[in-house]
Every structure is written in C-alpha cells, then in structure tokens.
C-alpha cells in the first residue's frame, strides 16, 4: 500500500513538472515547425517572429505608440475605473447587506441592470461623454499627460463591469456575517459605525476579495473590447485591431500574449495584496 501511494505521488509530481515544461515546449515546437512549413507569416507567424515583437516592447507601431505605452494606457484606464467601482461597490454593498429595507428597495433595480453586458453600455457612454477625457474633468482640453488617454465613456464601462461583481459579493458577504459577531461587537460597546467598520467589513472581507478579483478580471476583458470601438486611438486593444488590419499577425499574437499575462498578473497582484487580511478565512471557531 505504502509503496503504491509513494508511486502515485511520484507520478503526480512528474506530471506537474511536465505540465509546466514539456507540454508547452511541445506545443511551441509544433507551432514553429508548422508555421515554417506553411510559410505565410501574415496569417500564421512563427514563434520566433512573435518573440521578436515581445522583446521590443518600446518599438513604435503605426505612429500609435509602442506595446508598452499602449499596455500602460490600458492598465491605467482599468485601475481608475476599478478603484472607483470598488469604492462604490463596497460601500453600497455593506449598506445593502446590513440594512434590510435598503436591500429590498434597490435589489430589483440591481438585478435588472446587472445582466447587461458592460460593452453594451459603450455606444451610449460615448454618446453621452463624447470623447471627453479626465483632463476635461479637470477643466483642461489637453494636459499632455496620460489623463488625455482616459476617456470618461471608457471609464464608465469599466466601472459598470467592475461594480456589479463587487456589489453582489459584498452584499452576500455582509448578509452572511455571523450574527454572533455583531452581538459580540455590540456587547463590547461598539456603536453602529464601529460595527460597520470593525465587524461587517473584516468579516465580509474574504467575500469582498472574491468580488474584487472577479471584477478586476472583468474590467480587463471589458477594456480590451472597449478599445476596439471606433473613435478610440490608444490602448492595447486598439493596437490589437490596428495590427490585425495591417495583417501584422506576429504583432497580434504578441499582444494576445501581453493581454493574457497582464490579466494573470493583475489577479495575482490583488490576491497578494489582500492575503494578509484574510489569513483567518476558513478558520472560524
């Protein structure tokens, strides 16, 4: 028995190592060989051509900036939209989760608006906000900073994309807080505001974090799609479409790799930031 179990562990370890090394390597080799044999780089470029793009992140493309500058613009848009969505979603979520009548009042509206794809809001948002940017918000036409690249309409769709997952998770997290902790807080002299900050918020934090991660992933998807819309002339999503229009498939694939990597990085980053705050989760006694 013991021998068998050890063998199983060994096998599992081997498979995991192969999953990270041999399998990706094999796929890359198949890709490289078949692309070379096909010989149509505008349709199916080789791995090496994609790598060349990736190791030149500062090269300017079509006078629209580089991979790096466009990626940074996209990240900046997402961060601003995501932070505002988080603040609004968490505050409203705690209120709706803890005040029953407020939840009853607002929940139907939330449930009606929530299923609508954030991207579906974009034509409306662009019509309303035109192509006004954050700079206009501060009373300037051009500030010659990255703020010029943050269109309000785009922020609006990112906000919509992030707000609902955060709101729903916060409501569920807060509504699921053990009544006992509220009683304990009250018996130790906490007033309503203190219960809010020192009991509801930390108790719901693991659920809120789930919402934040989900929301950030959604925001990142939304921004790529939003940047593909007409009228937008910057961002990694814009560059993706532009490269495709120019049949620069090596650039297209390089951008896909970048988008995927940034998405994974954002998810990892938020988990890393929040980890110390939810170390207790699943350990309630």
């Amino acid at each position, binding site marked *: 028995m013991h021998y068998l179990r050890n063998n199983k562990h060994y096998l599992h370890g081997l498979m995991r190592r192969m999953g990270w090394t041999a399998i990706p390597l094999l796929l890359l080799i198949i890709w490289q060989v078949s692309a070379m044999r096909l010989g149509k780089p505008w349709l199916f470029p080789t791995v090496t051509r994609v790598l060349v793009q990736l190791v030149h992140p500062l090269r300017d493309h079509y006078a629209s900036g580089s991979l790096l500058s466009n990626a940074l613009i996209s990240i900046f848009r997402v961060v601003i939209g995501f932070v505002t969505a988080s603040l609004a979603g968490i505050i409203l979520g705690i209120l709706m989760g803890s005040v029953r009548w407020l939840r009853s009042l607002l929940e139907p509206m939330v449930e009606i608006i929530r299923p609508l794809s954030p991207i579906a809001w974009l034509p409306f948002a662009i019509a309303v906000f035109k192509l006004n940017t954050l700079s206009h918000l501060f009373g300037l036409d051009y500030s010659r900073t990255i703020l010029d690249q943050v269109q309000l309409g785009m922020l609006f769709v990112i906000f919509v994309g992030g707000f609902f997952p955060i709101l729903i998770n916060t409501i569920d997290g807060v509504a699921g807080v*053990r009544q*006992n*902790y509220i*009683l*304990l*807080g*009250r*018996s*130790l*002299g*906490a*007033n309503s505001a*203190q219960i809010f900050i*020192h*009991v509801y918020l*930390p*108790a719901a*934090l693991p659920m809120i974090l789930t919402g934040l991660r989900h929301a950030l992933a959604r925001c990142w998807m939304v921004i790529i799609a939003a940047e593909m819309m007409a009228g937008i002339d910057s961002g990694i999503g814009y560059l993706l479409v532009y490269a495709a229009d120019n049949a620069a498939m090596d650039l297209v694939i390089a951008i896909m790799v970048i988008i995927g990597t940034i998405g994974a990085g954002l998810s990892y980053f938020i988990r890393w930031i929040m980890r110390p*705050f*939810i*170390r*207790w989760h699943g*350990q*309630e*006694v």
Partner: protein
Amino acid sequence: MKMKITPNKIVGSDRIALSFNDVGKGYTSDSGTQVAALQNINLQIDHGQFVTLVGATGCGKTTLLNLAAGIDTPAIGAISLAEDICPKRDVAYVFQHYTLLPWLKVEHNVAFGLKMRGISRKQRINASGDLLEQVGLKGYEKAWPHELSGGMRQRAAIAQALAINPKLLLMDEPFGALDSSTRRDLQTMLGNLHRDRKMTILFVTHSIDEALILGDRVIVFSEQPGRILEDHKIFLPRPRMRSDDAFTRQLLHIYGLLAETHP
C-alpha cells in the same frame, strides 16, 4: 420592599443590580407556532452576586440573558438595571461559540472593547497583556483564535469581556463545549476572578454540578414555558467541594426538581 419599575433604567435600591419584574417573552417558531419562552419571571439579583441558571435546553435561559443584555426586549414586564450600571458600557457577554473575532489576533480581541472606547493603542495592548496573564494565556498575545484550544479560547473570551471592566457579566454556557478537566480549571479560574473583582455574574449552564460549584444562587427553570421552579441559595463555603455531603444533597435535590418537570 417596594420597587420602582422603570424599564432598563433605575432600581430603587442600592443593593440590587438587576431585577426582572413579571417578565414574559414569547416567540414564533419556524413552523409558525407561538412558544412562550419565559413566563412570570420575578428575579432580583444583588450587586456582586454570582447567579447560575439551570434547566433543560430551550427553557428560555438564553432569552433571559439576552433580555438582561438589552439585545432583546420583554413582551410584558420590565427589566431594571441599577443606576450605576450603564447597559452600553458596563455589561459584557460571553458566549459558548464564536466568542472571539477570527480576524483579530488574541491581544487585539481582548483589546477590542477598549478600542471601541477610543483608548490609545499602547494602553489597550498593555491592558490586554495584563488580562491575558490573569487568565493564564501569557505568551499567546500574538496567536490567532483558531490556533487556540477550546479552553484557551474561552479564557481569551473571558479576558475580552473583563477588558471593559463590566459590572454585570452575562455568560451563556461558556464552558459547555469543553472536556471535563478543562472545564474544572476554568470554573476555578472564574471563581477566583469573581472573588477578586466583585462583579455581578449571570451564568447559564445545563450542568447542575457547575451551577452549584460556582453560584451563590442557583435558579432552576422549568421548560416551555420557562418559569422559575426554585430560587436555591447556596451557603456552602468556597472553594466548593464535590465530596461534601451537603453538596451532593443539593445536587440530588435539583436533579429531582428537573426530573419532575422533564420526565
């Protein structure tokens, strides 16, 4: 002695800390039937008295504690606290389960009540350290609640309640989930804390033995509706000895009482 009945405010005697006057309370069960949890409760508790409440599960003992804590309000009758006991500041509650906030380390759990009062961080951490030492948890300041054993958690919970220096301490089966030797250790500790601090304690338990070991008075409850069967004063010297004949006699007497109502 005639007492003024003012809900949750004043008691007209400086001897009495807490008084229940003709208190009744019912609730609607999940199946929709009306259940009388408490009926005709008349109870006066003196300052510094250790009162234990025994009775079958579901006889309304917890409801009584909740009424005393102000978490719940009586359907009829009134509950009065002595003038010098502020319901928001001077009443602490220790539960059986979920007694500590899982997201705070032990020292911050104990300091929680002081934090709510705006005591500075340094002061409350010092106070928390002293209290943890008193309950035998020195060295566990930085531990997480889930790293403690059941008995240690209840020690920490008692320290947490004591931190706000309560005049009235409500305890709802705090040792109910502990093994018997841990339970005895904690009973001894609580007895000593009560002796040193002179606070009023209302202690719910379903162990008659525990009620007799700890209490100055044992209130025996009948079930459904919860009524006081007997208000049993204990005059045995402390520390109480289980081997004592008088102890055993009283134990059997209360057993008999409960057996009659719960055949």
